[in-house]
């Protein structure tokens, strides 16, 4: 009797819980996995890549990069011109663009944003370098912004700064402490931020009145994963629609999975092997304890020659990369440089041995020439595998490697202090190559106190610096491209670092949920981490039956668990009563 009663109660629980919630027209939702926290939603403070991506969706920039070929295209401004002396830039903000609260976007918003950065140091936290060369910014009328720079600056169409609404931000008293979480957050981008639960998720709604046209999805949800294995699993289960930053093995594990489409894209990142060429401060004072033998360019070239980069790409990157050469990855085809047949260094241990002999780094009695430290990041699969590989191939030319895999912080500390011989590093590059090129100028080395540097390769070369200065003020694009290529050739020749590989960006999505994405660039491009928001903006939901309410499935499972629990209790009670029946009598 009792058993029956329990079963009834359980059944009622399940039935009650599984009644589907009354659902009208379900909004279409694109769910994206992110594996990095959101540090801040304040666009002046946010420095994490994930936050930058969300900010891009919320706020348009002055200009944008086209989806097809990453050319500069309309953003907030639709037209621009520069004065004959290249010191004055005039941008036109057309009529008809509106903030998500309906207010018109004017030139005053642009001037307000840039001026805030010029006057408030907290507002320079994330993107200050873009305005470092600004003299003044003024809105001469509602439609015209005039920017005067201290020196000619060719990167004026690549100002990656979110433009904020003046009518909201002029009431903000301290940018430093402003969380920018008054939902919905007024913005100009194709999506509007509506909810953020720290460490869990971010929700955005489509800005149906965006001047480019409404996005095709109604909502965009970013859900946070602390570990990428779980994110890949979630994609497999259909919990999320899109995942990026996958490791080669994870990417392979999704091959042939029904309903999942993989996207092997050309990435913006490259991996490099730093060879300490003699770390020094900005004023030339040596710092760190790099092996002095590495100051000789012949030794550095020999090391580069002893590394079989093709083998690294195929065995460590599992083929998901391209062999490295210059500092700009091939995804930015215009600026990408490849050595000519004469310039190319081929994998040749014999030649490397001979070069080391010629450089006077002779073999000792035990057969070694040099003992070098190789630093990498513990837990990063690439560093773990590639270091073993390098140990073997450099061993062949008499260089003994002491591999030290350390935490991210320790690695940063060693590279910024110059206390390494060889180290793995890597950078993400932008549409305009200025940033990655600037890293290797003499001025990027740290100051006398060892702080303030941004380089980790400690390259300081007069020829390179001269070319850098020239390209920065070369407004004829074809000439600038030529200069940028010359810089890369110089870097390749002097080898302060060997660019080992251009990593592919590995992404996958539920093709049963999403019909198509817009990649950037159109051919072989990425969906996430673009220089733009085309991936999300252009995403089209697949035609499928209305999503079943998640509640009912959840409730079903919970109901099941409750039922199971009750059965266990009933069985236990019955068994117990049987067991003690003798004693009770």
């Amino acid at each position, binding site marked *: 009797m009792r058993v029956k009663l329990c079963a009834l109660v359980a059944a009622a629980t399940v039935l009650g*819980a599984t009644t589907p*919630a009354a659902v009208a027209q379900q909004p279409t*939702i694109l*769910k994206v996995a992110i594996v990095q*926290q959101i*540090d*801040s939603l*304040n666009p002046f*403070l946010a*420095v994490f890549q994930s936050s930058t991506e969300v900010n891009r969706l919320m706020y348009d920039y002055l200009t944008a990069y086209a989806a097809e070929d990453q050319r500069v295209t309309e953003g907030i401004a639709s037209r621009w011109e520069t004065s004959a002396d290249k010191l004055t830039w005039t941008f036109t903000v057309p009529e008809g663009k509106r903030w998500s609260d309906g207010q018109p976007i004017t030139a005053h918003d642009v001037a307000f944003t840039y001026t805030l950065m010029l006057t408030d*140091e*907290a507002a*320079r*936290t*994330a993107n*200050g*370098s873009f305005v*470092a060369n600004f003299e003044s910014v003024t809105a001469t009328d509602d439609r015209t912004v005039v920017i005067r720079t201290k020196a000619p600056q060719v990167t004026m169409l690549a100002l990656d700064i979110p433009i904020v609404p003046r009518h909201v931000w002029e009431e903000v008293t301290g940018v*430093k*402490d402003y*969380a920018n979480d008054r939902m919905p957050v007024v913005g100009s981008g194709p999506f509007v931020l509506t909810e953020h*639960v*720290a*460490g*869990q*998720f971010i929700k955005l709604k489509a800005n149906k009145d965006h001047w480019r046209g409404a996005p095709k999805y109604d909502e965009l*949800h970013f*859900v*946070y*994963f*602390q*570990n990428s294995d*779980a*994110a890949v*699993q*979630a994609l497999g*289960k259909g*919990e999320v629609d899109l995942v990026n930053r996958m490791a080669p093995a994870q990417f392979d594990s999704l091959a042939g999975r029904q309903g999942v489409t993989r996207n092997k894209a050309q990435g913006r990142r490259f991996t490099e092997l730093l060879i300490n060429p003699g770390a020094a401060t900005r004023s030339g004072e040596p710092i760190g304890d790099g092996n002095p033998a590495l100051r000789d360019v012949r030794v550095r070239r020999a090391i580069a020659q002893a590394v079989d980069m093709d083998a690294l790409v195929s065995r460590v990157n599992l083929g998901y990369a391209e062999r490295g050469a210059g500092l700009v990855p091939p995804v930015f085809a215009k600026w990408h440089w490849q050595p000519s047949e004469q310039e190319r260094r081929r994998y040749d241990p014999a030649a490397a041995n001979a070069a080391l002999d010629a450089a006077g780094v002779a073999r000792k009695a035990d057969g070694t020439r040099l003992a070098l430290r190789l630093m990498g990041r513990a837990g990063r699969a690439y560093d773990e595998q590639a270091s073993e590989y390098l140990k073997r191939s450099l061993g062949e030319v008499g260089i003994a490697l002491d591999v030290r895999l350390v*935490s*991210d*912080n320790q690695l*940063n*500390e060693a590279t*910024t202090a110059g206390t390494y011989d060889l180290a793995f590093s890597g*950078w993400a590059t932008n549409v305009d190559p200025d*940033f990655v090129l600037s890293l290797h100028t003499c001025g990027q080395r*740290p*100051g006398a106190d060892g*702080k*303030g*540097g*941004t380089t980790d390769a400690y390259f300081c070369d007069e020829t390179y610096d001269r070319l850098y200065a020239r390209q920065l003020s070369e407004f004829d694009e074809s000439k600038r491209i030529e200069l940028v290529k010359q810089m890369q050739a110089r870097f390749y020749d002097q080898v302060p670092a060997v660019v080992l590989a251009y990593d592919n960006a590995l992404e996958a999505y539920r093709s049963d949920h999403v019909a198509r994405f817009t990649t950037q660039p159109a051919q072989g491009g990425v969906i996430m981490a673009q220089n733009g928001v085309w991936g999300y903006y252009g995403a089209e939901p697949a035609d499928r039956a209305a999503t079943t309410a*998640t*509640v009912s499935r*959840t409730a079903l*499972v*919970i109901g099941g*668990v409750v039922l199971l629990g009750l059965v266990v209790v009933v069985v236990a009670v019955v068994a117990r009563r049987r067991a*003690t029946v003798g*004693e009770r009598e």
Partner: protein
Amino acid sequence: MRLLGRLGGAALSLVMVAVLGFFLFRVVPGDPVVSMTRGRPTTAAMQAELRAQFGLDRPLLEQFWTYFTGLLRGELGTSFTFRRPVADVIAERLGPTLLLVGTGTLIAVLLGLWLGIRAAWKRDTAFDRVTTGVSLTLWAVPTFWLGMLLMMATGDLFPSRGMRDTDTAPDFLSQALDVGHHLVLPSLTLVAVVAAEYMLVMRSSLLEEMHAPYLTTARAKGLRDDLVRRRHAVPNAVLPAITLVFLRFGLVVGGAITTETVFSWPGLGLLFYDALTGPDYFLLQGLLVVTAGGVVVMNLLADLLHGVLDPRVKVV
């Protein structure tokens, strides 16, 4: 009087933790400003501005004084990473941690003690051997691996991440059910890994009591075996387990770094992990004070409760 002494001791421990924490985390390698700006176009001037904003350009002792006097006023400083007061950042993660680790620990304690008592009472039976064997195996299994395995084995029955879905209906019942649904796998992982500890402690302390003469007396009075165990043996054997339980509850606040990482549970463990990658000094210090506070308070409670549970302690 004794209570005052204990309270004083607890307060002193907390102060020591606060002082130690400050200097301890300064030894962690890494420069918060470098971590923040890495990979972004940055100028030396911007780095210097950030350093000044965070007070990192001040002498170490001055930084300590600012931190310590702030702490006395109840201020934990501002997180470098999240750009918000540390107290706020910790507060929003405290709930999820208490929910997960609290639930997990509670189930583990009840299950562990129950299994321990059973196993001791029926020592050397198949039940004892299987329970002990399974518990030890689970205890030895890496949490990370077990969590991932559970996630794979359960297919799409349970969600793989976080505390709730983004598209759950906003009403209370749906939300509560959703959180419960998300809670299953992480708490199961936690229980599987820690229950063994209670089980083994309970088992061994009960075994020590098994041959005590007072149990024979109880049986001679004609008591059922169940009652002998419940009323006589267990109350005498439970003290070591209680101590352990309170120590564990003290650590609840600290979260469960690995479990939270596997299931992306937005708790304090995960926050600790993130803070270390900065290193985010103020956040680390705040977390240490909160975690240590939990342990100190629970220890104090265990001390006081011992007096209630065991009259012998009161006399001393």
